């Protein structure tokens, strides 16, 4: 399927106009109130250039922080249920880093194994991911340790990689990517053996994820979890910014006559997550919750779906108020 083309910066700018005319909403990392956030943009110029990635992940475009699942009206002896179908605009996610793009694969897996989640799928189906390879990385990045890389094509429909001579290598990877390219095929030129690696960031692998997964079963009772989680304050920042974390809560909001059921993000790091109404808590200590986070991502999920539930984007480490650096912690576990 994959074809490799080239696109100049000017043509890429022109592509934005084409996409807008075709009724596509374009979301890209851009500056808002002094912060880089994923926001609706119309031109390439609005897209923030010199940055690693926004704080929040793009998962919100398919798995919003709060979404309606159903609503109802109540009367004595009567309840009228109302199903809900989200209205979704065709959207291009522009400039997603390869790690974040790969994150969608984990979400796809959870929301579609066994039963299909129509809310996620309705949103996901409208997304076209135009990835942008990384030319810089920071101390939180570890994509290469979990099967990704600064130029990895996983999860992207089109992957753009900056070239030293200007412009981008454009790998058209999926039918969706093809459809997007076909909106303006003239803007793309055939590639000519350009070196994709030339400008890519160098991210040295710190550990090897299969090896890590193999280690976990033997470490369940190890002190390492208590030791690592000592400074963890038990908030949900890591999970909420994570492009692969999918755990959610279902909340009811109603008055006496009507109500709705909402789904919102939740985190296994929060004490409330597993707390029973009786007061019993299967994971009552922060160390147990930290261990669950690691085991779920690198053990249980990997076992069920064949790879870690982590793309090494480092968002959790950057968002953590107390610098719980995931790469560092995983490396430590790997080296036990």
């Amino acid at each position, binding site marked *: 399927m994959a074809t490799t083309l080239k696109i100049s910066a000017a043509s890429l700018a022109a592509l934005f106009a084409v996409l807008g005319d075709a009724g596509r909403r374009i979301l890209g990392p851009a500056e808002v109130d002094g912060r880089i956030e994923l926001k609706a943009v119309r031109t390439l110029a609005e897209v923030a250039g010199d940055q690693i990635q926004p*704080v929040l992940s793009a998962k919100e475009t398919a798995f919003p922080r709060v979404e309606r699942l159903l609503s109802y009206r109540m009367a004595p002896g009567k309840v009228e249920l109302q199903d809900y179908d989200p209205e979704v605009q065709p959207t291009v996610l522009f400039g997603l880093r390869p790690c974040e793009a790969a994150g969608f694969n984990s979400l796809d897996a959870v929301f579609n194994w066994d039963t299909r989640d129509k809310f996620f799928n309705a949103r996901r189906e409208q997304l076209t991911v135009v990835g942008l390879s990384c030319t810089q990385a920071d101390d939180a990045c570890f994509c290469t340790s979990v099967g990704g890389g600064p130029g990895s094509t996983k999860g992207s429909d089109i992957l753009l990689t900056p070239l030293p001579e200007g412009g981008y290598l454009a790998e058209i990877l999926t039918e969706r990517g093809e459809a997007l390219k076909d909106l303006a095929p003239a803007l793309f030129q055939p590639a000519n053996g350009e070196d994709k690696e030339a400008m890519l960031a160098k991210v040295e692998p710190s550990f090897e994820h299969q090896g890590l997964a193999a280690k976990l079963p033997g470490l369940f009772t190890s002190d390492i979890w208590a030791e690592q989680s000592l*400074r963890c304050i038990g*908030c*949900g920042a890591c999970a909420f910014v994570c492009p692969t974390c999918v755990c959610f809560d279902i909340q009811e909001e109603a008055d006496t006559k009507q109500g709705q059921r909402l789904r919102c*993000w939740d985190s296994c790091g929060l004490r409330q997550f597993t707390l029973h109404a009786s007061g019993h808590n299967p994971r009552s200590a922060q160390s147990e919750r930290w261990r669950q986070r690691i085991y779920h991502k690198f053990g249980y999920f990997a076992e069920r779906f064949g790879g870690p539930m982590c793309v090494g984007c480092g968002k959790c480490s950057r968002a953590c108020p107390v610098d719980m650096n995931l790469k560092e912690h995983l490396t430590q576990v790997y080296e036990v």
Partner: protein
Amino acid sequence: MEALRTKAKELLAQGEVQVVIGYEAGTAGVRRPCFVRTAESAIRLVWDTNCIGNLAGYLTRPEIKRFGKPAIVANNAVLRSLLQLVAERQLQQDAVLALAVAQDGVVTELPTAQAVEDYLAISPGGLSAADREKMEHLAQLSREERWTFWQRELERCIKCYACRSSCPMCYCGHCTMDCNRPQWVSVPSHALGNLEYHTVRAMHLAGRCVQCGECGRACPVGIPIHLLTCYAEESVHRQFGQQAGTRAKLDYALGAFRPDDKESFIR
């Protein structure tokens, strides 16, 4: 920094304390909390101008309390938190040995709340100049502009509770936010839920906030939420003349009253 390491080493070696809560080098120049339990590992401790986080939240955590008597490397925020925790009877007068480190690296041992109080009387700290400026700027806006400002900011809130978790005064085992009978505040991070949550937080910290700004630093999406609690605290200070984290014996401002409390809006 050497003075601090030496002191920590000495305290641990002599068994005066079982843990030193301090800062260590973290990712890319960040200073993060660390818990030194042996004299040999005192070398991990660092002290410089990047040590801005408030470590006092750990003093009430069961995981840390388990270690035994703590010493804590203290900037002004930590010292104020310590006093307020004593005032709220979360810590005994002499339960913590504070190690106040001056700019020049000199370490002062403050073994009791009284010592902390005396030390703070000389160097009180409080709201930073930058925060004071932001707060004054907001106060000058029109009411509608302030509403718009806060709505725009709070729209970013994802209810990760990093603000709550990082706050040394948010030690409650069962927070109002977690009560669901009745469900006082909506759980989802939609517009209403976010406004309600942050109002509750500010109100519940009025008269208790030590103005360390930790919640604002903790916020992953960069909302200056500390301005809310700091403002509520200022309001208490202005109207009732008392300030959290300045005295070891301090009645909760909103749990007390004076018959002649002055206001001008009740009809």
